[in-house]
C-alpha cells in the first residue's frame, strides 16, 4: 500500500504527454517533482489548475544558485482530489531577475511574490503590489541573496556589547608557547581562523 504509486504515475504520465520537455519525477507517495523551462511555467500552472484540478497553491519558494548565476523558483501545488503534491521548479536568470506573476490564477500569490521580491529582489511583472513586506525601509541588497553578508551588515548597523575584546585564540596561544612558525599554507587549514 505504502509503495503503490499508481496515482502519482498516472498524473506524471499526463504531465509528460502535455509537456514533452519537462523533467517529471515521482519522488515518493504524494509528491511529484517537475522541472520546467522558464517559458513553460505559466502554461503548466494553467494546465495544472484547469486540467489536473490543482486548485490550491501552497507556496512559492526561491533558491539562490549563485554559482550558476540563476534563481530557482519553486511552485508547490496541491490537488484536493488526489492529495498529490506537485513541485514545479524553474530556473531564471539572476542578473535580470524578472518573472511574470501568477497572481491571476491564485490571488494569494501576491503575498508570496511580495516576500520573494523583498528577500531575493525578483521582480514579478504584473504584480503591482510589490511593496515592503517584513523589512521596512530596506536599502541594502535583498538579504536572502547569498552575496549578502549578514554578519558584516549586523556589525555595521547594530551595536555589540563591549567587554569581550580580551578573547584569545587557542591555536595562537599554543603557537606562541611552543615557538612554532605556522606557514601560510597551513593557516588555511587552521580550524579556528
Amino acid at each position, binding site marked *: 500500500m505504502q509503495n503503490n504509486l499508481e496515482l502519482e504515475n498516472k498524473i506524471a504520465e499526463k504531465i509528460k504527454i502535455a509537456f514533452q520537455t519537462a523533467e517529471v519525477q515521482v519522488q515518493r507517495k504524494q509528491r511529484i517533482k517537475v522541472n520546467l523551462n522558464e517559458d513553460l511555467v505559466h502554461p503548466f500552472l494553467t494546465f495544472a489548475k484547469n486540467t489536473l484540478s490543482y486548485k490550491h497553491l501552497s507556496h512559492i519558494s526561491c533558491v539562490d544558485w549563485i554559482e550558476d548565476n540563476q534563481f530557482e523558483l519553486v511552485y508547490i501545488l496541491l490537488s484536493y482530489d488526489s492529495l498529490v503534491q506537485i513541485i514545479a521548479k524553474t530556473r531564471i536568470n539572476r542578473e535580470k531577475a524578472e518573472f511574470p506573476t501568477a497572481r491571476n490564477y491564485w490571488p494569494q500569490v501576491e503575498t508570496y511574490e511580495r516576500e520573494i521580491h523583498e528577500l531575493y529582489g525578483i521582480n514579478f511583472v504584473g504584480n503591482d503590489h510589490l511593496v515592503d513586506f517584513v523589512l521596512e525601509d530596506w536599502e541594502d541588497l535583498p538579504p536572502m541573496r547569498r552575496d549578502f553578508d549578514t554578519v558584516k551588515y549586523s556589525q555595521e548597523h547594530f551595536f*555589540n556589547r563591549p567587554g569581550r575584546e580580551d578573547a584569545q585564540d587557542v591555536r595562537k596561544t599554543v603557537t606562541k608557547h611552543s615557538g612554532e612558525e605556522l606557514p601560510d599554507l597551513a593557516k588555511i587549514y587552521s580550524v579556528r581562523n
Partner: protein
Amino acid sequence: MEITYDKNAQEILSTIKSFARKSSLWVIAYGTGCGAIEIPPTMTSRYDAERFGIRGSATPRQADVLLITGYLAVKTLKRVIRTYEQMQDPKYVIAFGSCTINGGMYWDSYNTIKLLDKYIPVDVYINGCMPRPEAVIQGFIKLQELIMNKKAEGAAKYKENLEWYRENQRKIIHNWRMPEYNW
C-alpha cells in the same frame, strides 16, 4: 493655602507611593519573540503572578510595565517605541532573555536589534533563553525591589537622554514617520 510637608513626611509619602506602585504592576500585553509563550503560565493559575499584584492591561496608557519578551525586529522596534512612549509614568521595562542583552542567537541577523538598552531604557534583565516563569517572577520581584529603593528610574533616564535615544533609533529606522508624543 499652601501645604508644606516636613522632610520626614515627604519620605513617608513617597514610600507609600512606591509601595502602591510596586504592589500593582500592570503589564501591557505585547508579545515579541519566543518569550510571549512564557507569559500565559506566569499569569495563569500555574504560577499565578497575580499573587504579586501583576496583571495584564488592555492598552499602553493603562500599563506600568512593558515586557520585551525576546528579539526585536527593526519593524517591531518601531511599534515598541510607540507603545513605550504612549505609556504614562510610572513606567518600567523588563527585558527577557539573551536576545535583548547582546543579540542572543540572532547576533548575526540583519534585521534584529542586539542591544535593547540603546533604544529604550531597561530596568530589569532576566537571564535565559527563554527565562522560565520562575525567572520571570524573580524578575518582577527584582523590579519591585528597585521600585521600593527608587532605583527603577528608566523613564526619567529616557526623558533626560531623549536625544541620544532618538539618534540610535533613527540610525536603524530610516523612514521616521512617528508621532512625537508630548514629553
